[in-house]
């Protein structure tokens, strides 16, 4: 095993199709026009010495080390800023160049500490490498002069010296080691798009400054790590590298946080993870990362992790540690008993969007083949189930249409109900890069998210709608497109049913859908809405990206269909730069849906009523699959309260915290007789569990995740599971205990079974993934290397289907008792219920959930910034501290749901999407008032959680 080596070409690739041929050091090289000489040389295997160049950022030409000579030209131009041209003859190593380089290096080293042996970057330092490459042997200038290195000179304090900035929990900034190449500054600007860094001062006084000479934590820095990655010295260094040392081997794997699915190199020392470094060949992230994937992996070795299986007869008992065998036997006996006593359908399972495709597949197989029913559901129920339904109905597939690279070809981006800079940061960086190049942005969101206006990005239009009125707004956008004749008739005639279109066009054209007519309802200025529609329809390639602000509504599915209508009507489907793109919340939520996690669907979105599909699995598994859909999560809970549903196996999901109406969830769980939680931690749901099976992290297993662009990425095991078994092994052992004859020895065999049974995965195998890095489904005979963009020549369902999208107001309405609308969301540093990120240093950025409230509403209620407030709805009440802001409009309040003590879902109601039961998290009528502290429920809950987490200490057998 060794480190996965990535070549640094020095400057980004040129996209030109015209090729030029030149000679470098006697080698003939052909490269696209516009390629730098530095990159052209590297393509030929010739490394020109460099310090300020790296291929993640544009050439800068400041270090003066990469100089070259060109025959017939004067001087020694920098190879990073000189483009390759036909017929050039270039020399990279001449006597003159060698002398210049040595001289430049002498200057650098004269102001750099000579502590290489004790330096954290030892072995991974480009300055060190270059000193070696140019043959530096001595420094004529000495080290005594003016410098940034020593704290004192001749006993007097050196005012050029600056102490280390250790404010960021994950990396340090040591100005003494800085060579001012400005790679960090450019990475922050070009790659991340935050512009948090600058070079302050000039000349010898130049130095890197976060914000206005602030420390990193107080500056605008979002801790994405791009600067650390770009730094050629030890100036910006991961604290983990300082603590542990340099890694000796690495494996490419996939991040287990959001649906972007970034590829990382897990750099290891033995079984110890030294750091995660974004992988440049990762097709979702292209070498970029965010604070979660890059740094927030500490949870994997957190002391809270439970490593031994545990059992208890009653949830009021303390936990008792048992052997794995005893745990499996207990669960198998209990589930069989329950099924015998209450019927076959009295038990079920929940698959996890955090686990691999293979693990998910096995859980639904366990339910269908082992439990003998279809009572399987997944957390996509509470996030993107309307996407599945809506896109399947209109286009024919339950997935986004594009790859992330597509954004580079987009001219107008419409972001609806998504907050990419917090929820999908790496995609946001790629989007912002495109926006800085001139693409236009339309934001449809009740809240002024960062994309609306942040350095170098500003939305052309922000439709600040009232929560719950998405359908009205999107339908009205279509109204403008149709009534102003901006639709793409050619596209519609070719790809869709013209009759259907006309019916739909007549529907949206009716005056009650005009921007003016809906203003009172939505709060959106009609002129703004018209401008937005015109821009989207006429601005070139139009792409729609949307998130949970679209789906988590009583009309979630309708909005998805309205979005699909709009994309079809404007001809924005089936090529680069366009499309309908759901931003998936979790690393494998796409995959868990693909794998047949829904009670009505077998893998590949095939309905359980379809006999031919059932037949495939019946034969393979030797069972008879039920032809009726099973219970969805909310139905399971209802049935539990009714006394007909008694046992559940929950893999990697914390339904108590993440599902709406916490009290109802708690009541459901409490009514069951055997709740099996398979997780890393004693999560909130585990407070109601009878059996706890320890889970494993993504670092501890092999498998695949499927991201928001349908990309199947490999997850690779880099360390042994602390708990002893990968999750797929636990599920398999449980299946065996229930009498099933499963004998998988590696997840690749599970993938082979998926490929064998599921047409859209027919071509997928671990060999193919090894070869290609990743593929996007459908991957089969028709598309052996996968499908980056869907519906290119026609829709998957044949003709695209236009559907009437009538706005129906939610039953959740404001009134005198509950006059405000609560909507919820995420923040950059925390992830969903926070089970992982709360167990990392990310809490430094967000230690509690706050309630965002407009100054107007706050003043009415006598609330000041930071005050404790009580927020109550028809379902319940909780308390948290207020944050006064103008990001939300008057009448709207907003909070995150990362901390269990806040319990935002105590307030949310049980209203849900009409088609898929996706809960209406995004709209709750609430009242906010001053409070003295935690609510009764919070106090009670804390006590119950504390009691429930007791583990009985067995007498030590010493």
């Amino acid at each position, binding site marked *: 095993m060794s480190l996965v080596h990535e070549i640094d070409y020095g400057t980004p690739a040129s996209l030109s199709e015209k090729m030029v041929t030149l000679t470098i050091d006697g080698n003939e090289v052909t490269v696209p026009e516009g390629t730098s000489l530095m990159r052209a040389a590297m393509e030929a295997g010739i490394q020109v010495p460099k310090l300020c160049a790296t291929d993640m950022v544009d050439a800068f030409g400041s270090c003066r080390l990469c100089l070259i000579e060109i025959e017939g030209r004067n001087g020694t131009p920098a190879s990073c800023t000189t483009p390759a041209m036909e017929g050039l003859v270039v020399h990279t190593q001449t006597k003159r160049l060698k002398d210049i380089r040595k001289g430049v290096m002498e200057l650098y080293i004269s102001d750099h500490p000579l502590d290489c042996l004790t330096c954290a970057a030892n072995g991974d330092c480009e300055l060190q490498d270059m000193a070696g490459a140019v043959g530096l042997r001595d420094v004529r200038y000495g080290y005594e002069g003016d410098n940034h290195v020593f704290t004192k000179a001749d006993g007097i304090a050196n005012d050029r010296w600056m102490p280390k900035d250790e404010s960021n929990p994950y990396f340090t900034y040591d100005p003494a080691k800085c060579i001012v190449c400005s790679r960090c500054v450019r990475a922050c600007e070009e790659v991340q798009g935050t512009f948090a860094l*600058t070079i302050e*001062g000039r000349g010898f006084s130049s130095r890197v*400054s*976060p*914000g*206005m*000479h602030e420390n990193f934590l107080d*500056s605008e820095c979002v801790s994405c790590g791009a600067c650390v990655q770009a730094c050629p010295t030890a100036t910006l260094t991961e604290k983990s590298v300082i603590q542990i040392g340099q890694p000796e081997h690495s494996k490419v794997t996939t991040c287990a946080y959001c649906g972007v699915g970034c590829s990382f190199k897990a750099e290891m020392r033995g079984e110890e993870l030294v750091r995660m470094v974004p992988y440049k060949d990762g097709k979702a992230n292209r070498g970029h990362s965010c604070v979660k994937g890059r740094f927030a992996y500490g949870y994997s070795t957190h002391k809270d992790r439970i490593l031994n299986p545990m059992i208890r007869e009653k949830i009021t008992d303390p936990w008792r540690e048992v052997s794995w065998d005893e745990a499996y036997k207990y669960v198998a006996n209990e589930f069989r008993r329950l099924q015998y006593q209450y019927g076959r359908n009295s038990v079920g399972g929940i698959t996890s969007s955090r686990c691999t495709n293979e693990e998910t597949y096995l859980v639904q197989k366990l339910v269908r083949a082992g439990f003998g029913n279809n009572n399987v559901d997944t957390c996509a129920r509470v996030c993107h189930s309307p996407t599945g339904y809506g896109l399947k109905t209109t286009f024919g597939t339950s997935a986004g249409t594009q790859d992330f690279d597509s954004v580079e070809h987009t001219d107008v981006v419409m972001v609806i109900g998504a907050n990419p800079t917090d929820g999908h940061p790496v995609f946001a960086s790629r989007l912002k890069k495109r926006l800085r190049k001139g693409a236009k942005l339309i934001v449809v969101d009740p809240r002024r998210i960062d994309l609306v206006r942040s350095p*170098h990005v500003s939305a052309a239009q922000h439709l600040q709608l009232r929560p719950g009125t998405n359908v009205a707004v999107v339908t009205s956008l279509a109204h403008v497109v149709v009534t102003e004749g901006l639709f793409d008739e050619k596209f519609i005639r070719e790809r869709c049913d013209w009759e259907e279109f006309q019916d739909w066009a007549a529907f949206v054209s009716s005056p009650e859908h005009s921007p003016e007519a809906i203003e009172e309802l939505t709060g959106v200025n009609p002129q703004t809405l018209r401008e937005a529609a015109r821009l989207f329809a006429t601005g070139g390639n139009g792409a729609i990206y949307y998130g949970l602000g679209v789906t988590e509504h009583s009309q979630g599915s309708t909005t998805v269909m309205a979005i699909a209508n709009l994309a079809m009507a404007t001809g924005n489907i089936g090529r680069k730069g366009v499309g309908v793109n759901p931003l998936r919340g979790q690393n494998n939520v796409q995959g868990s849906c693909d794998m047949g996690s829904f009670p009505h669907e077998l893998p590949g979105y095939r309905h359980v009523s379809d006999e031919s599909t059932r037949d495939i699995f019946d034969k393979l598994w030797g069972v008879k699959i039920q032809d009726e859909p099973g219970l969805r999560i909310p139905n399971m809970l209802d049935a539990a309260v009714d006394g007909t549903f008694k046992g559940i196996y929950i893999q990697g999901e914390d339904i108590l915290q993440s599902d709406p109406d916490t009290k109802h969830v708690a009541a459901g769980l409490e009514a069951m007789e055997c709740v099996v939680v398979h997780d890393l931690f004693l999560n909130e749901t585990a407070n109601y569990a009878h059996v706890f099976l320890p889970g494993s992290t993504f670092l501890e297993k092999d498998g695949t995740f499927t991201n928001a662009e349908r990309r199947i990425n490999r997850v690779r095991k880099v360390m042994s599971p602390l708990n002893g078994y990968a999750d797929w092994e636990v599920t398999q052992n449980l299946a065996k205990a229930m009498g099933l004859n499963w004998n998988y020895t590696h997840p690749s065999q599970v993938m082979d079974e998926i490929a064998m049974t599921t047409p859209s995965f027919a071509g997928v195998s671990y060999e193919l993934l090894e070869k290609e890095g990743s593929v996007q489904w459908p991957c089969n005979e028709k598309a052996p290397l996968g499908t980056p963009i869907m519906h290119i020549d026609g829709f998957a369902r044949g003709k695209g289907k236009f559907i009437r999208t009538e706005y129906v107001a939610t039953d959740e309405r404001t009134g005198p008792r509950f006059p405000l609308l609560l909507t919820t969301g995420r923040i950059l540093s925390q992830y969903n219920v926070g089970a992982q990120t709360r167990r990392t240093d990310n809490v430094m950025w967000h230690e509690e959930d706050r309630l965002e409230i407009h100054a107007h509403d706050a003043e009415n209620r006598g609330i000041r910034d930071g005050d404790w407030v009580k927020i109550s709805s028809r379902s319940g009440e909780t308390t948290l501290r207020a944050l006064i802001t103008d990001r939300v409009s008057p009448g709207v309040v907003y909070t995150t749901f990362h901390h269990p003590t806040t319990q935002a879902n105590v307030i949310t109601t049980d209203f849900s999407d009409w088609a898929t039961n996706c809960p209406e998290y995004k709209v709750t009528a609430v009242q906010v008032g001053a409070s003295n502290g935690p609510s009764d429920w919070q106090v009670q809950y804390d006590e119950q959680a504390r009691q429930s987490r007791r583990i009985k200490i067995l007498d030590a057998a010493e």
Partner: protein
Amino acid sequence: MQSASTDIAARAIGIIDQFKGKEGPLLPILHELQGEFGYVPQETLPLIAHALNISRAEVHGVFSFYHDYRDHPAGRHVLKLCRAEACQSMGSDALADRARQLLGIDWHGTTTDGAVTLEPVYCLGLCACAPAAMLDGEVIGRLDAERLDEIAAEVRL
């Protein structure tokens, strides 16, 4: 204290609004702020960043690049002495020493009575009349010890 900084913010916003629609507005704004306040109050930098939709790091980078911008108030008068090559060759170093001695301050210092701030400058474009100086924006050519003594006395009046 509160009212003073609110006053600065209000005046700064007036200036920023006046220039923010122009092309390349950052330097003109910084100039105008220094003209208005005699220095660029650091609390105005985030206001500029917000108005121009750039980061405060960027504003700080530009502000700190130019030595001419001050981050704190200067004395009632500002004396700049050229220290570039042409003036050095005509004896500016000796004049500089004299000036520091006369005023009892070092470069960038302000006399305790707040009368004058002494600043180095690298070329006033007046090399033909070296050594050159600038007092409160007015250039002075062929500076000599006598003239310097006069200036030192004048600014203290």
